[in-house]
């Protein structure tokens, strides 16, 4: 329990630190949200100044930070200058869309990586292993962007899947099954790209830690006792190889909000990616700060989850 308290306090301190840095850096960047208005001859300089003071942008940095903290504690997380709404409600909808995409992709990537990684580790050095490793090398070296554009090109030519967006026009009139199918069709390409991008790293890690464990004498001993192949791999070797994989799983969770920004922008997925891009370009700083804070939160959550799972899975950690 003590440990848990310490972790929570640590996490809060980290969030405060990140928010301070976030404010500092966004203040260092030149320009502000209303700068574009200054170029518009129809808007007078007085109006711009009035707007600035109305939103409190004319105040010094510590005052702005203090106001933001107040609003964050209230649960609004600041106010979006472009959308004229509290940041929280804006982020929640977008984060939900992003999570739908990334959680599905992460789950799929792990579901593929574990059995395939275990299998090629057991065939280490054979042609299946080398073929898979060569495949992961290719996937690793091709940028996500190229994969996405390639798939998009194929979709535009063949029209088998919708080329972007999250739902079709007339989504609301569809039945439950129709809605599900429509969403799945829109998900296919972005999820596919994310799986292809994440899979090689996972696969190589699973393989590497399994190969390491399979070489150890206690695995030889188990084979000598006549253990079955499936049981050896999944009941004996996989738990022994799990520690580095759990840390990797923590990283997967940490990347849930931030891992798909590029793909979302290209595919027109209404997630955090396009929102963050627009907000950064237009200096809608509270949205940027809010999105960064949400990513940080997931980062902390991911490493915390990994630590808890480590305690659950590895008895040695419990003893210590």
């Amino acid at each position, binding site marked *: 329990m003590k440990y848990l308290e310490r972790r929570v306090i640590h996490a809060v301190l980290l969030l405060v630190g990140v928010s301070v840095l976030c404010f500092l850096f966004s203040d260092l960047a030149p320009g502000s949200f209303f700068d574009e208005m200054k170029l518009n001859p129809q808007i007078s300089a007085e109006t711009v100044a009035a707007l600035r003071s109305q939103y409190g942008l004319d105040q010094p940095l510590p005052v702005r930070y203090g106001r933001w903290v107040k609003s964050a504690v209230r649960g609004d997380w600041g106010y979006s200058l472009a959308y004229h709404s509290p940041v929280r409600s804006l982020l929640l909808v977008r984060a939900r869309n992003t999570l739908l995409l990334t959680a599905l992709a992460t789950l799929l990537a792990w579901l593929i990586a574990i059995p395939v990684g275990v299998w090629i580790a057991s065939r280490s050095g054979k042609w299946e292993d080398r073929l898979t490793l060569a495949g992961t090398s290719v996937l690793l070296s091709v940028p996500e962007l190229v994969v996405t554009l390639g798939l998009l090109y194929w979709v535009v030519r063949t029209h088998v899947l919708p080329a972007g967006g999250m739902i079709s026009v007339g989504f609301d009139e569809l039945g439950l099954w129709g809605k599900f199918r429509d969403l799945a069709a829109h998900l296919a390409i972005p999820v596919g790209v994310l799986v292809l991008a994440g899979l090689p790293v996972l696969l190589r890690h699973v393989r590497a830690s399994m190969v390491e464990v399979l070489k150890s004498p*206690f695995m030889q001993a188990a*084979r*000598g006792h*006549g253990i079955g192949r499936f049981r050896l791999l999944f009941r*004996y070797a996989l738990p022994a190889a799990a520690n580095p994989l759990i840390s990797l799983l923590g990283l997967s969770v940490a990347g849930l909000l931030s891992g798909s920004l590029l793909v979302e922008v290209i595919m027109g997925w209404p997630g955090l990616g396009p929102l963050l891009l627009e907000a950064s370009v237009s200096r809608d700083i509270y949205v940027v700060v809010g999105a960064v804070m949400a990513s940080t939160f997931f980062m902390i959550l991911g490493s915390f989850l990994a630590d808890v799972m480590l305690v659950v899975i590895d008895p040695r950690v419990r003893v210590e």
Partner: protein
Amino acid sequence: MSKRYVQRSPFSRKKFVIDALIDVDLEIAPKCMTALVGESGCGKSTLASCLVMLERPDRGGIWFEGNEVSRCDAAELAVLRPRLQMVFQDSAGALNPRFTAGQIVAEPLEIQGGESAKNLRSRAGELMEEVGLSADWIDRRPLEFSGGQRQRLAIARAIALKPAFLVLDESLSGLDLSTQAQILNLLLDLKTVHSLTYLLISHDLSLVGQIAEFVAVMHQGRIVEQGTRQEIFGQPQHAHTRDLLNSCRVMESAFHTAGGRS
């Protein structure tokens, strides 16, 4: 029998070929202790792996109690495996660090199946007592034991299935002398009680000279000489055997001189 390892490089056509075992012909007398000696890398451990069917020889065969082990399919092997067991050199690596002592000792019984969890635990306790460990330690993990105690655990695991043939792959190396002597006595006791056949793989000639009944000498993948202990130590025929024995004597005399000076 022979065993060849081939390693291909992904970037060239060159192959690295290692002939680990070349026309090895070794007969192991039942219920005796046979020692296999030779320098590092001469193929002792490969031979051991082949004997307990962790590897298959490329040519030739292995016979055990009238069966040709190297030709057995999976089902026949499953029956034979409990009869052929091995104790490894590195006791820390040979025991799954996540298991408790009880789980480790009961592991072969569990793999072979057919026993309830409660029986497994009591059997594990009995086996631990048999190798001189307290059954109270059943819930400890390998890292909480000393090197000698871990080797006892490994032995308990190896005899759990009541094997007929036990390969001791450098099982006594890496232990201090008094622990070595204790483990050795344990092994000799178990040999009488269970009428076990041992193959002791070692580079420690003075140890082999004390306890082995038969000795085989390996050199670069070949068995160059085999015979009773008296034959090998009394009248070594092969040049390599003489080298081994001489180097052993040189070491001993150097040790004595150094000891005398200080």
